[in-house]
């Protein structure tokens, strides 16, 4: 006996607890199975690129905070690198180390949010998420000591950083690293070998490496498919050429690998932070750049970093004025979203939520 069924179209989002912001997916289901996916973005569009044309170069730093609001330090860094390339300014070594250190702390915080929300999407009642947020709060506290803000930091400036770290920052950082070791072990024990997590995520939403490359996916999503591609290694910026770290990769490119990879990257970030603490030396923290920047007319620069979600880049064109003629942002979340349809079709509703979580998108960055 065959039962007559018909496909059902459901809008997942823009108001849905698991779309990580105002993201909408128009999904056609056959029962629980996904037949067709259409991602719809643009609900959080704030016109950052156009706004940047109306601000001067220092003011744009505050706009970058609001792109990927869980890793604003790294956004600052990418923008400042682009402006420094535009000016040809040289950053003092202490500022380079401070940038590297804060960017890695931000990467830890961002990955903690990422893995916490994958587990939340898997259906845990917030316990692993709260474990992750416990450590993330400590990092935000450190940022508050540095610059007074926790989320929208605006700590970096073209030519260095805004201010040197206060003296009580270093002992607090040491204490954090010591506590984080045990706290993170707890999270790993809770989730890494959990049978339900394995069963739910392994072999689901496989991303083959060739597809990943063709869709120009970057960051942990690409590395989980097996390519050791990391701008910190390929094209070292700031102090990344002075520190040692590995680029972890996974093989399968499934949800578990993307989840596992972020945990491994946190370990590497801790390594980098520890080396920065050892290597950093006293000195100036900001190059001697004028207050209002006026790059050469016609100058262009492309500054890219390995952000927590992938390759984040700012392309700036100057017309000699105090604000850029054009500011193009290459945001990793938007480009990582291009593979959603390949990842989701054929899997179930429950898998879809986890896959979205494993891509670790951030709507502030997708819509800009």
């Amino acid at each position, binding site marked *: 006996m065959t039962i007559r069924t018909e496909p059902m179209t459901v809008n997942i989002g823009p108001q849905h607890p698991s779309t990580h912001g105002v993201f909408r997916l128009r999904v056609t289901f056959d029962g629980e199975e996904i037949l067709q996916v259409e991602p719809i973005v643009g609900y959080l569009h704030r016109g950052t690129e156009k706004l940047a044309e109306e601000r001067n170069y220092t003011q744009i730093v505050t706009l970058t905070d609001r792109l990927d609001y869980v890793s604003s330090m790294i956004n600052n860094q990418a923008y400042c690198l682009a402006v420094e390339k535009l000016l040809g300014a040289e950053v003092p070594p202490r500022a380079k180390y401070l940038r590297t250190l804060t960017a890695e702390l931000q990467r830890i915080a961002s990955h903690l949010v990422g893995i916490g929300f994958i587990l939340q999407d898997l259906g845990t009642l917030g*316990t692993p998420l709260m474990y992750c947020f416990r450590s993330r709060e400590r990092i935000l506290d450190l940022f508050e000591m540095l610059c007074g803000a926790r989320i929208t930091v605006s700590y970096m400036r073209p030519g260095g950083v805004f201010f040197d770290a206060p003296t009580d920052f270093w002992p607090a950082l040491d204490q954090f690293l010591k506590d984080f070791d045990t706290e993170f072990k707890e999270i790993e024990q809770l989730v890494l070998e959990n049978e339900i997590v394995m069963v739910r995520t392994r072999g689901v939403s496989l991303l083959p490496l*060739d597809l990943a490359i063709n869709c120009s996916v970057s960051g942990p999503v690409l590395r989980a498919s097996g390519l*050791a591609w990391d701008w910190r290694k390929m094209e070292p910026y700031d102090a990344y050429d002075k520190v040692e770290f590995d680029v972890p990769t996974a093989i399968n490119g499934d949800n578990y690998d993307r989840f596992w990879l972020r945990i491994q990257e946190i370990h590497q970030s801790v390594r980098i932070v520890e080396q920065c603490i050892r290597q950093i030396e006293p000195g100036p923290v900001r190059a001697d750049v004028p207050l209002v920047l006026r790059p050469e007319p016609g100058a262009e620069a492309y500054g890219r970093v390995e952000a927590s979600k992938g390759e984040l880049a700012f392309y700036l064109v100057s017309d000699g004025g105090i604000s850029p003629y054009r500011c193009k942002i290459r945001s990793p979340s938007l480009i990582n979203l291009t593979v959603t349809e390949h990842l989701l079709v054929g899997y179930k509703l*429950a898998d879809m939520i986890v896959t979205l979580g494993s891509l670790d998108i951030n709507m502030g960055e997708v819509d800009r």
Partner: protein
Amino acid sequence: MNCVLGPDNILHDTVLYRVVYEFVGQLLPCWLSYLIAGFVIMFFLINAVLLGAAIFSWMERRLIGKFQNRLGPNRWGPFGLLQPIADLIKLIFKEDLTPRAADKIVFAAVPIVMLAPVILMLAVVPFAKDTALANLNVGVLYVLAVTSVTSIAIFMAGWSSNNRFAMFGAARGVAVLISYEVPVVISLLGVVMIAGSMSLADVVNAQTIPFLLVQPLALFVFVAGTAAELNRTPFDMAEAESELIAGYHIEYSGIKFGLIQAAEFGGVVTASAVIVTLFFSGWSGPASNYIGWLWFLLKAGAVACVFIWVRATFPRLRIDQLLALAWKFLLPVSIINLFATALEVYFLRDDAGSLATSDLWIMAGINFGLAALSILAFGTMIREKVRPVGSGDASPSPLGVSIAESS
């Protein structure tokens, strides 16, 4: 008018009922006191469930707060104990919305159909010696029958809401409830066989040692099945907050939502009460003739805490994995338990057909070994089957382009 319940009456053993009936019966005609006593009993019952649900909701939120490194509700009353009342007042005064396209009668009936079985289930559970509100001789069967009504309520909610998320939740919920009913029923047969009776009072009396020790496999299956029927993680398919937002009760608001929540929390309380009665020797304990109710409450609280603990820890299974777990793991395991218990009872019972305490210890020894063995065996067997096919090997790209090598 001296109304007396004779020993042949089914309600004779219900001390509370008899006392009220005979007290009122001194003044009023017997048929009226029969009704009044019934209402008094119902009043106790409904309030016991609702109060239990309120206390459980407070306990769950506080405990999960502790699990998660935060405080939980702590503003109203000592330790936030009045929080459920504050929540209730809020829910009563909220607007009660009914979607325009909803089937209005069915939609409105759902909270009642949800809550009724939870209250009814408690009627046969003995809180202390001779205090079951109705000592039915088919108590176990009654409990199983009444719990099944919940699946109808979930489907009514999903269908009448006219919402696709609710429909998803309802379809999932019914699939889960129907699947998990089977192993739960079979796991309870072992208990019934040892006790030699379906009456819950007799089951408690038969537990010279708690059936937790004699029937570990049945306890495991029953707790897992109950968690699935109560829609609690790792089996909370029908609600699945991260997927279906709220599942079958997505369209409910105000006091209707409150009643559904009360049914959910009350369901855990009554399920804990049933588990305590069947496996943790109910009200028995030191000085149980006097403080049996205290033992009962303590044990039920402990079981409820286990449910909270599991909820705070585990991720959710997917629907196909969940059904596979029911049919491929819990069902065979419960059948093994049934056969083993049947053989043990057949060989160990004496001429009168009853089992001595020493026999129960022998059974405990055998059954624990069996439980470990069968959980291990079926656990390993299901492990690979649950995992989706093709794990580990990448499928060819739809774009048909591949790269030669990666650095």
